[in-house]
């Protein structure tokens, strides 16, 4: 069947899909570097980071599908959730779907994402959902390596040549308007905090600020000015880039339904 699916609108399911989709879509963007990375070692590194994120996403989408069935909806597996939703039902923050850009943009986004995911996974280890807590206990170890890796590139390029510094500062300027969404509060977020499923995203901001400021200072980069707009990818309102990304990501399952390796 090529019919699209609609995931459960239960708050817990939506909360897990936001995080699972963030990992899935970021993984997809990072994997676009395969064949294009500046050096072979970095190609392997980006491939490994994308793989970790994909594994985390698979676990979260699986759990979201189970919770959706428990909430009275249809039981969907990870593949159905990854490949058969319409754009409006993907709940990743818009930042994750932005085109991969240049190497500076990729490393800045990876740092921003890792500094967000590290406190996220750390807190999720105490989730009242035992499966989510177990997923987090593994993921938190992986994201430390991702954060370390991105931070080293940001320092190396930020405190590098005139050209590399300019491009890093430019990448920061491009990504900054999308940061607000990572810490925005709404009813789904509040419900997760109340039920103990996971932290309210707004509560992750102090940890994120501290980590980012430390790296930017070491890299001699300037933190951009705060911008007011809050994107709404977590409610399915995406940028023009998302549809293009999905046509690539979904093409196999849409063309050959149920196809497996």
């Amino acid at each position, binding site marked *: 069947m090529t019919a699209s699916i609609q995931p459960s609108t239960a708050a817990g399911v939506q909360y897990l899909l936001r995080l699972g989709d963030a990992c899935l879509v970021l993984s997809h963007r990072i994997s676009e570097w395969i064949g294009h990375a500046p050096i072979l*070692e970095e190609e392997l590194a980006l*491939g490994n*980071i994308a793989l970790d994120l994909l594994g985390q996403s698979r676990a979260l989408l699986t759990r979201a599908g189970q919770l959706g069935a428990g909430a009275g909806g249809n039981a969907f597996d990870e593949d159905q959730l990854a490949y058969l939703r319409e754009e409006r039902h993907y709940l990743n923050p818009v930042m994750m779907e932005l085109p991969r850009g240049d190497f500076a943009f990729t490393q800045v986004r990876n740092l921003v994402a890792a500094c967000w995911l590290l406190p996220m996974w750390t807190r999720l280890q105490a989730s009242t959902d035992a499966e989510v807590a177990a*997923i987090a206990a*593994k993921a938190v*170890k*992986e994201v430390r390596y991702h*954060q370390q890796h991105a931070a080293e590139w940001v320092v190396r390029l930020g405190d590098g040549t005139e050209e590399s510094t300019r491009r890093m500062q430019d990448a920061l300027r491009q990504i900054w308007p999308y940061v607000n969404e990572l810490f925005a509060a709404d009813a789904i977020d509040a419900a997760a905090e109340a039920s103990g499923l996971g932290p309210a995203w707004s509560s992750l901001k102090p940890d994120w600020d501290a980590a980012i400021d430390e790296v930017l200072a070491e890299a001699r980069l300037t933190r951009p000015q705060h911008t007011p707009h809050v994107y709404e990818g977590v409610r399915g309102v995406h940028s023009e880039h998302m549809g293009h990304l999905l046509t690539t990501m979904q093409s196999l399952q849409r063309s050959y339904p149920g196809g497996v390796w």
Partner: protein
Amino acid sequence: MSAAPLPDFHDHLAWLKTLAPVGPVGPRPEAGDAGPSDLGCGRLSAAWEVLSQVLDPEVPAVSLVELGIVRDLVETADGLEVVLTPTYSGCPATEAIEQNVRDALARFGTITVTMRRAPAWTTDWITDAGREKLRRYGIAPPGAVDAGQGVPIRIVRRHAAIACPRCGSAHTEQVSAFGSTACKAMYRCLACREPFEHFKPI
């Protein structure tokens, strides 16, 4: 890790021949006296013995048992339940490992494989014998998982010295924090000039 003498090339070849064969690994013939008809712990220990011969598909120097990813083995009414834990969330070898376990234990009846995430796998579970096999295979084994991993970020321009698995020198440098598989980093030895891999502590 103590510095080991540099094995010469022929020693290394001789040692390689002592390794279990790489590839699909079935029950060893000498384990043949234990089978589905055996009762109690004799059967379980025979199954453990079989699993201790099943090599990791990505690092075929150590067994699944030595890596610490076989968490439990339980007798069921008509076979065995094997409890495995994944190493990394996205490890692409997970399915291959599960299949190899099923193949190796086929004659023990119906094999149920259960994936258990918690507690999360750590390189601290790799046995001492497994670490020594890694080193002799050319992969620097992981140190103890650093309790300081919880610190926000370590901006390090130089990485802690990892001893070269070939010559034992600590005069080495990291080439990349990520290697050919998720679990390894790439290093080079500045003493013997050989590149090598390091099994990352996690």
